[in-house]
């Protein structure tokens, strides 16, 4: 029973990592940029989610609104931070991205204060019993939402013209343009979707810890960067599998070696170990 419970806990955290990491891997696949500022957008999602929930009492409204706002914010980051320097070597946009991330953290600190905010609706932390496990409503909601959103993304990518155009642009942007695909539109769509997903991930992590704070993007973002390497950079399916794997390893590690290493240390030890054995990531190719 402990085994099953740990596995479920792993999936819960893994699905949250997936929500963050997918956006990162999408940006990498399209532009070959390590989009560190993604972590700032994720934290922005957490803040907006909490503020809107506390103001209106509706978590659903908070999610939809902040996903839309953060999605637009992601497009803005692309337009202002990446588009002018796309033809530079990769470290240039990387440095710009780190700068945007730090700036966003400081803005959160200035606007919302350094100590963090909590939800004022206790029912969001309520427990339910499912399959013999005591889970929080937020945890179940997170897994279901992640499945629905990532499933929707997969449907979009596989079955719609714009999704096919998007994948074609990742494969060969120049030739895709030759057939009438607007690469700029595809990039905006990419940032909108990736950032919107990150916002929802940010709201869920804030629900799980009942806290949003200026630096909340940091640790999940480092993990997400490692996850997308593990999943084979730019590989969406690999990223999903790597996210879940990391969640499960963390859950088991916390129980069995938790007295030596904390949760985050276990995650990084695992990622370093895997990357030493398979530096190309668990999955190569798309």
């Amino acid at each position, binding site marked *: 029973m402990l085994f099953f419970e740990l596995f479920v806990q792993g999936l819960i955290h893994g699905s949250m990592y997936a929500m963050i990491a997918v956006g990162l891997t999408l940006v990498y696949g399209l532009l070959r940029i390590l989009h560190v500022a993604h972590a700032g957008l994720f934290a922005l999602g957490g803040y907006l989610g909490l503020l809107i929930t506390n103001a209106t009492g509706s978590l659903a409204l908070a999610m939809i609104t902040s996903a839309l706002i953060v999605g637009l914010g992601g497009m803005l980051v692309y337009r202002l931070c990446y588009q002018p320097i796309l033809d530079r070597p990769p470290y240039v946009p990387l440095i710009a991205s780190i700068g945007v991330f730090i700036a966003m953290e400081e803005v959160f600190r200035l606007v919302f204060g350094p100590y963090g905010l909590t939800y004022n609706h206790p029912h969001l932390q309520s427990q339910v019993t499912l399959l013999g496990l005591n889970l929080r409503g937020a945890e179940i909601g997170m897994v279901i939402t992640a499945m629905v959103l990532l499933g929707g993304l997969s449907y979009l990518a596989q079955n719609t013209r714009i999704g*096919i155009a998007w994948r*074609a642009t990742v494969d060969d942007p*120049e030739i895709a343009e030759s057939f*009438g695909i607007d690469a700029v539109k595809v990039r905006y769509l990419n940032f909108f979707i990736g950032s919107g997903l990150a916002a929802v991930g940010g709201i869920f992590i804030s629900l799980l810890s009942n806290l949003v704070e200026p630096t909340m993007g940091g640790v999940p973002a480092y993990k997400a960067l490692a996850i997308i390497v593990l999943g084979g950079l730019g590989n969406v399916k690999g990223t999903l599998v790597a996210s879940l794997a990391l969640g499960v390893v963390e859950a088991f590690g916390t129980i069995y070696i938790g007295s030596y290493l904390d949760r985050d240390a276990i995650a990084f030890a695992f990622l370093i170990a895997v990357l030493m054995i398979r530096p190309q990531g668990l999955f190569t190719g798309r």
Partner: protein
Amino acid sequence: MLRLETLSCGYGDMRAVHGLDLELVEGGTTALLGANGAGKSSTIMSVAGHVQVHEGKVLYRGEDITRATPMARVKKGIAVVPEGRRLFSSLTVRENLVVGGYSLPKPKSDAGIDRVMTLFPRLKERLDQRAGSLSGGEQQMLSIGRALMSEPALLMVDELSLGLMPKMIDACYQAVAELKRGGLTILLVEQSTHRALEVADQVCVLESGRSVWKGSAHEARNDTEIIDALLGLQAGPKA
């Protein structure tokens, strides 16, 4: 229908083509020949809108399209089969064709796929296979099919036969001949002179980015030694 006026194009400061004049007549097939590095692909890609034009003009049906985007050009009817095929290799055959027809309204896509299947029946069983898993010849067929999906009036094919098995070369040339009979204007780039001369009406030979010989394919066929000498290629059997 397509006219290049003293076209110079290249990459950054580097010039790949110098002052090229070329005119393609509607419905004609023009072979652009030349050794490796002569500037053939650069010419094609500048017509497609991917290589920077330094000087001169690209006129298409009388309209100056020198500065048009690649997207605008495909809508006007210019399609390219690029060197090395450059398929979207992680996409299926069908998806590659859908992308080919992206500039047209959706309903035209299905009809287009049917037409491509008639031209290349081999692709039919492979519609849901990933493009990267096709053989070289099938990939070239798909690359031609993808270009045809945009219902072009001008088809530019770069290195149709390069790296293909003889049987596949025959099949691809047969398709080109059929397209020619259907009235399509074709610009054919080849290193293999003899195959190109069989199907072409007009010939232009490039050397180091300059046009060094122009004439009808008929003249060229009767003068293969000269052409081959210009190209520095081995003389093959006479056509």
